[in-house]
């Protein structure tokens, strides 16, 4: 299993490169994970998406679909793709410390 070094701590990753343990996550970890995805600074809009992702994951055990994300996070499709280029659902799940979303939509 691969690991990542953040703030002097070694964190375990799953096969997709996402955090293996939800409990390892905090906001500083998120900032570092974001940098790894090419997002230098997390704005309030990024956080709105990240917090929504975590909320849905805690309720349902899976990250929301892109449709749900678009409809319920308060951030529309266009903005989602500009905040998280190259895949908003996948990237925001990773930064939120969640496993890769399982759904097709």
């Amino acid at each position, binding site marked *: 299993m691969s690991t990542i070094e953040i703030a002097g701590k070694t964190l375990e990753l799953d096969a997709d490169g996402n955090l293996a343990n939800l409990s390892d996550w905090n906001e500083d970890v998120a900032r570092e994970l974001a940098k790894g995805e090419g997002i230098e600074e997390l704005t309030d809009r990024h956080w709105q998406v990240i917090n929504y992702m975590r909320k849905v994951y805690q309720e349902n055990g899976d990250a929301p679909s892109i*449709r749900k994300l678009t409809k319920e996070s308060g951030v529309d499709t266009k903005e989602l793709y500009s905040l998280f280029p190259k895949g908003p659902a996948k990237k925001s799940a990773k930064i939120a410390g969640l496993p890769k979303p399982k759904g097709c939509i």
Partner: protein
Amino acid sequence: MAEPIEKVSIVISHGSLEGVYPGLIMANGARMEGIEATVFFTFFGLDAIIDKRMDNLGVATVGNPAMRMPGGIKMPTWLGAIPGMSRFATYMMKKEMEKLDIPPVREFIEMIHDAGGEIYACKATVDMFHLSENDFCSSLDEIITVGEFYEKSAGAKIIFT
């Protein structure tokens, strides 16, 4: 390791619900993976982007040997031909799709477009069916020839559905 896919160009040529959705799911899925996507609608596939028709696509219940009724029993062709069967099958499929959070056609195409996917209509079909740009939904980028389709597909994997 094999080169990852960077771009897909998806052709949708059928106008039934089951003919349109696979291409839309693949296009949306591509954008979700950070893959560039263009969708080219041709022949009856155009119905999926024609403003007055796109909300009323149906499931074909005739001529499909894999068609099954709720419960899993095969649907005989003659049964599929009974008035109302297509409407019923369409209703059932839409209900199941909603459970999976698959959006209706119009919303799905808007989503793909907002996600940066490009939506094109085939010029030959537009001419053949005597259509014009005004007949299409606002997500349409352009009516293009097959030659332009190949130009825009440079470097892409072309997927015909």
